[in-house]
């Protein structure tokens, strides 16, 4: 079986507006890719489209993962195959503790791995607790976190760490991190960066989405891609981040004849 995520000529639109306009990208298990682009270039649209958000319409193209075309699948089926998205803006689920949620989610994802049954047996409580505690220690997350309601009243940094904890517990094959560094102060970026890098290994492929290369100081990507106006305009290695750091996106826009989109919806 092939655990690569293969995106071919993907077109995604939002409310009839084309946002992703023919994107090609392959992320293999064990690889770290960075996808960089200015605000509004379509990074989150790509991420949510890949995960199957009903709001994002797939107009054409293919996304192959685990040898199947995942565009036909529900988000939970994609998760069960081993795809994971760390959200730029995680949603609060009041009244549901992080621990309880994680137990149900991990059970769902794992039951699919073993026998594909729909009837999820819950991971035994003791076993789950032990594993959760170990991963929380590994990521330096406070014990009290487990009892708090999922993302409810979390600070920006706490939300991002909760996303990484979920990543650690669900053990996906390919993880997409959508601006996991945005809105964080320097210390928080370091904590999140170190956490993610501790999870990276031959079993995990990562697509790090960011518009600012800070996070990449902690997780060195092998591949860097520049997204402008819904297309990857350049791919390369670490040196691309240095170019962006020095010059910003403007020379790149000029080079490819793309006007600046006048909107700032992210921090």
């Amino acid at each position, binding site marked *: 079986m092939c655990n690569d995520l293969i995106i071919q000529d993907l077109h995604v639109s939002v409310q009839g507006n084309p946002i992703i306009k023919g994107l090609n990208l392959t992320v293999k298990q064990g690889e770290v890719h960075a996808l960089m682009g200015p605000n509004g270039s379509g990074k989150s649209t790509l991420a949510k489209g890949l995960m199957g958000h*009903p709001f994002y319409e797939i107009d054409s193209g293919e996304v192959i993962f685990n040898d199947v075309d995942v565009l036909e699948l*529900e988000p939970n089926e*994609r998760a069960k195959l081993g795809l994971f998205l760390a959200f730029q803006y995680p*949603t609060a689920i009041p*009244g549901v503790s992080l621990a309880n949620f994680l137990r149900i989610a991990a059970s769902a994802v794992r039951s699919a791995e073993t026998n594909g049954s729909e009837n999820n047996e819950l991971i035994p409580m003791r076993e789950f607790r032990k594993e959760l505690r170990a991963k929380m220690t590994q990521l330096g997350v406070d014990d009290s976190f487990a009892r708090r309601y999922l993302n409810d009243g979390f600070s920006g940094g706490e939300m991002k760490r909760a996303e990484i904890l979920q990543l650690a517990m669900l053990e996906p094959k390919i993880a997409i991190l959508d601006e996991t560094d945005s809105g964080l102060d320097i210390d928080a970026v370091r904590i999140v960066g170190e956490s993610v890098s501790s999870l990276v290994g031959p079993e995990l492929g990562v697509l790090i989405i960011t518009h600012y290369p800070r996070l990449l100081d902690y997780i060195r990507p092998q591949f860097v891609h520049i997204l402008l106006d819904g297309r990857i305009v350049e791919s390369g290695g670490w040196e691309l981040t240095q170019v962006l750091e020095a010059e910003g996106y403007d020379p790149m826009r000029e080079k490819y004849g793309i006007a600046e989109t006048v909107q700032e919806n992210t921090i």
Partner: protein
Amino acid sequence: MATPETREVDEIGISKDYQYGFHDDVKPTFKSRKGLDEEVINQMCDIKEEPDWMREYRLNAYEIFKQKPMTKWGGDLSQLDFDDIYYYVKASDRSERSWDDVPEDIKKTFDRLGIPEAERKFLAGVGAQYDSEVVYHNIVEELDKIGVVFLDTDTAIKEYPDLVKKYFGTIIPSADNQFAALNSAVWSGGSFVYVPPGVKVEYPLQAYFRINSENMGQFERTLIIADEGSQVHYVEGCTAPTFSSESLHSAVVEIVCMKGSRVRYTTIQNWAGNVYNLVTKRAMAYQDAQMEWVDGNLGSKLTMKYPSVYMMEPGARGEILSIAFASKGQHQDAGAKVYHCAPHTTSQITSKSISKDGGRSSYRGWVDVAKGAKGCKSHVVCDALILDRDSRSDTYPVIEINENDTNIEHEARVSKIGEEQLFYLMSRGLSEEEASTMIVNGFIEPLVKELPMEYAVEMNRLIQLQMEGSVG
């Protein structure tokens, strides 16, 4: 448990329309004819061998009932026919129905709710020999040692006539409303609890340990007296579907919280879909006393229930936490009432409702501050969750303030299960149904965490059952 001739059972009262009509072989030793008149009441008093004061009390209440017009507000009562109801059924002590007669699906429901074996039989109406009878007797003995009385109200009238007579009907007079009048005329069963001064009952008193034929009757009458500085938690009902052949259930619950006492009354009810559940619940809290109602309503055709607390002296506090789940063909008209009759009294109302498959839930609340009741505080929060476009939620809050020096807050929110919430949970591997169930369980968490452990577990499973098949 009542032992009617035909039981109509709605599997879990909510999401599905399974209806079972099955016969049992129980022969009631007495069953009044349909409808109500003085003769029926007199017969009832004769059989129960009640004292004269109770007979007069009942007859007087019946006079009041006859004069009361049909209740116009709340839910739709137009289908309710008072002449088509048996008002008194005294069952034989032994049930001859066997566990084998209980339909498979019901057994399965018990299974999935995780109800213990012994209780299942009782709940299915098999259990005149309910094993917990022993448990109940042990509890009563324990309670006896610390002077706590825990009896069914019929027995209490005989064993503690003065105590019962002193308080019976003083919190909710017969004339209070149409259904209080009806209950006062024909009540049977219910609990009587007396907790002496300073005594703190360590474990919850559970109504369904009281095993007698009139438990869970149609017209229960419960009276709880917490003497000065005492503490007690009373729990009634259970999450399992409550089978009933009778379509009208109208209970009255009266609670006296004397100085410095603390009472919590927890109800979880899941009536079959044919039932009108019209309940009057009221507590009076005296100096520094605290009364808490925790009220969960599922099932029924129409529930009208507004637990109330009258804060009679300074320092009294009333808290009401109510949750209603309205599904297809159901109207939950639930809410709360608090009356600040003295200065420096405080109250908190938290109401949560869920409407699904065309169900309707209403919050009906009343906050009243009397003139001169200075420095009172009341905080009301109403949260409604609507699961689909056919369902409905309304709020009818009334706030009546006759004193300037008060602090009243009212917040109301109506929400839908958000697409973003669903997507978030689904992206973590949960199916749409699992995701919605998780969101609903989170929504009612404030109530569930107040429940005794075993009820909390059952409650979450019940929500899960009700959400099954709800996502297309």
